[in-house]
């Protein structure tokens, strides 16, 4: 407690995280969005006809759907000024050594291999729009676990793919799921067979690199009966000057008695629009857990949801949002109780500073027939200065008998007593504030694997830099 680590992480941010490597692309689509570009993407990927048709149909839906009138202000997005597909290198590398040197340099600087080497079962790193580095542990393959990028999955496991793709989040779900279905590229595909437990977290790094490039990855996870998997998604993006759009779709199916945990640490640079649809279907006695951390981006709109489809299903969302200057984090969670005896919890922690705005937006819905279900939502917000803003918009609809629903929220500042105590122990004000913030999000950090917890604490320190005088 007496010695505080040097928190001067922010001063070299540009060198450390703000770098970018010169663009070098095998194929680069034109800016903008029209059926020709969508067909071209599908042709480049040599996709089956049903997928091409689905993409084109989704494009139509995207064009017809209005922009959401709630949440953050999205009017500044210019859909015609975005690259919808890029491919960084022609073929996938099998080992770390095979990676192109400039891409390797990018990851070296991010510290990916060092941090993860001992933990990794498979690294699936998404550079630009496609997975370029991907290794699967033999053990996993032997167990029948499929962990691949979504493009390869469409090619190599067409039947499994077609059975589940778009079933959890259909293209017409919302404007951005339609956009994603039209132009998706990359993402992870995981299938865990019956009764198989994947003890080591599966991880993928996503990166946006090219200026004005949209990233539309598509992730599909299927946990068959009695299986378990923990998937970790982490994002860091270099700083650019014009806006970028990230609009992913994540679909998860958790079958009977299975458990899936999906952990995200999202740190897009502060000009990225991060509009993501994440949804899981949990069947009998299955458990779905979303652990969702949102630090970067200009605007994030993301509400991981769980549809509790059969008795005994359980859903969990643990969400942390940090909004600094010019940022709006509109995050939260949704729990849709369809079956009886289902339970859900949402815990949200948000921090606003320097004029940033965090909004919790949540929805608990208990349909008729979801009797004996329980749901509890807790939101805590911390406002670090008087320029910042915090909102809470929880929607609670109870349509079922004998259910219990609770919602609690508090908004507060860093307490003077806590600050005084720490400062009386010789800790500077800014260090004390950083410690209090780290303590505030501790329930989240402790759910992360160690190296991610370290990384998150480092990012918080970085965000806290210069926050107080």
């Amino acid at each position, binding site marked *: 407690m007496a010695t505080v680590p040097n928190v001067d992480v922010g001063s070299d941010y540009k060198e450390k995280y703000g770098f970018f490597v010169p663009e070098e692309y095998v194929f680069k689509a034109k800016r903008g969005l029209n059926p020709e570009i969508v067909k071209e993407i599908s042709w480049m990927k040599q996709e089956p006809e049903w997928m091409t048709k689905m993409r084109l149909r989704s494009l139509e839906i995207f064009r017809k759907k209005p922009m959401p009138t709630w949440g953050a202000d999205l009017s500044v997005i210019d859909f015609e000024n975005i690259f919808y597909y890029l491919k960084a290198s022609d073929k996938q590398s099998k080992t770390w050594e095979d990676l192109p040197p400039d891409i390797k340099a990018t990851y070296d600087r991010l510290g990916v291999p060092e941090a993860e080497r001992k933990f990794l079962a498979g690294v699936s790193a998404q550079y630009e729009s496609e997975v370029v580095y991907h290794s699967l542990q033999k053990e996993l393959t032997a167990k029948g676990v499929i962990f691949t990028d979504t493009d390869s999955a469409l090619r190599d496991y067409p039947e499994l793919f077609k059975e589940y793709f778009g079933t959890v989040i259909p293209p017409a779900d919302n404007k951005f799921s339609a956009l994603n279905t039209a132009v998706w590229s990359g993402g992870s595909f995981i299938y865990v067979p019956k009764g198989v437990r994947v003890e080591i977290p599966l991880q993928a790094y996503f990166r946006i690199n090219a200026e004005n490039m949209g990233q539309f990855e598509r992730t599909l996870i299927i946990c068959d009966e009695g299986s378990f998997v923990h998937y970790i998604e982490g994002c860091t993006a270099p700083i650019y000057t014009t806006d970028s759009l990230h609009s992913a779709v994540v679909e998860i199916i958790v079958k009977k008695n299975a458990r899936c945990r999906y952990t995200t640490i999202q740190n897009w640079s502060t000009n990225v629009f991060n509009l993501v649809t994440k949804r899981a279907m949990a069947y009998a006695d299955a458990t779905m857990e979303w652990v969702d951390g949102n630090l970067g981006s200009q605007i994030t709109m993301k509400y991981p949801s769980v549809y509790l489809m059969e008795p005994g299903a359980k859903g969990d969302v643990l969400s942390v949002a940090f909004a600094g200057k010019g940022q709006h984090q509109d995050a939260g969670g949704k729990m849709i109780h369809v079956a009886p005896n289902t339970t859900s919890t949402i815990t949200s922690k948000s921090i606003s500073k320097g004029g940033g705005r965090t909004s919790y937006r949540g929805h608990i819905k208990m349909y008729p027939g979801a009797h004996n279900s329980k749901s509890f939502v807790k939101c805590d*917000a911390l*406002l670090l200065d008087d320029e910042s803003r915090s909102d809470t918009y929880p929607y609670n609809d109870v349509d079922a008998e004998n259910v219990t*629903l*609770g919602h609690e929220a508090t908004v507060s*500042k860093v307490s003077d007593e806590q600050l005084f105590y720490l400062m009386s122990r010789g800790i500077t004000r800014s260090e004390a504030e950083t410690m209090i913030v780290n303590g505030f999000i501790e329930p989240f950090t402790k759910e992360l694997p160690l190296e991610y917890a370290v990384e998150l604490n480092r990012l918080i320190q970085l965000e806290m830099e210069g926050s107080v005088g």
Partner: protein
Amino acid sequence: MGLNAETLDELRGEPDWLHDRRQSAFATYGRLPAPSKTDEEWRRTDVSRFDLGQYSKLEHLDGQKLVLPSALPKGVILKPLRQAAKDHPDLVEPRLFSLVHADRDRFTALHAAFFTGGTFLYVPDGVVIDQPIIGQHFSHEGGTSVLPHTLIVAGKNSRFDYLDEYIAEQEDEAGYRSGSTEIFLGDGSQVGYVAVQKWGRNVWHFADQRAELQKDASLKLFNVTLGGKFSKTRVEASLVGQGANAELKAIYFASGDQFFDFHTLQDHRVGNTRSDLLFKGALQDTARTVYAGLIRIEKGAARSDAYQANRNLVLSDHAKATSIPMLEIDNNDVRCTHGATVGPVDPEHLFYLRSRGIPETTAKRMLIQGFFGAVLERIPFEHARNLVEAELEARIG
């Protein structure tokens, strides 16, 4: 048919400014679109079956009954609102519909165009009235519109209690009702206001209550909603002076196929202000309720303290409660907490009482009484408290 321009002519003998205001509100009504499902406030609140044409007759131009304390202190003005508009335009004209705006939606516009009855109460600076003042609004027949409006002006450091009672003579009458209230609280004033809505079971009821609190003013506002097949109530308090304190409480008991909607706003415009909201309701049969409340703390409103809670006791398998407690906080130096619960009678509590030999129905009734008990004590004056206790007793059975 319905209420129309000719109906406006029935309201003759009013000052020109009021007649003009009614006409402009009626024009606003014509201009505004009907609430649609895409409108957040109306998403869960269906008014599509409200047919104004059925309620074209205005009832009770000035027909409310005022129960006065034995002697009103000097300077207090208490009279029907339309009479007051004639006698005291200087007091009424600048305030009427300045808190509850006619252009808020179609129903506020309709109310502003056709309000009849209702009370004007003016209590001068420093005046204290010990006994509560009671305004009773009756409906005698079905198929009519009854649209009273209450305007209350509390002078500096004045203190008094007021009760609005909305009473149906027949439980099954149909009709269109609105009972809106504007309360202006001067510096240091203390006002208790209770509204008890017990219209018939086939009535459409729309109410807009809004209070504005100046420095160190204190408001205790209490709503009791029991009647109507459809009842939508907005309760809003603007805290515009430092040290202002608003307590907004309500109980509701929805049974049969009743639908109740409550929208509340605690608007902290300046700092060092306090608001405390608690809405508690029980639902049975196929009743539905919607609660949506917002605490808004404006940028400069440091050291504000706001609390908001909505508790729903669901007593039947087919009742449905929606609860949306919202916060918009623009200042960090605040204390702000809210909570919402929806749930049945606690089975453990029920088990405990039954293990003491109490029959299930009695035990359930005791638990419902217990649920309301604590909040009933917050009704600001005894007369209203006794009235509400008796009403609840009759309904819980």
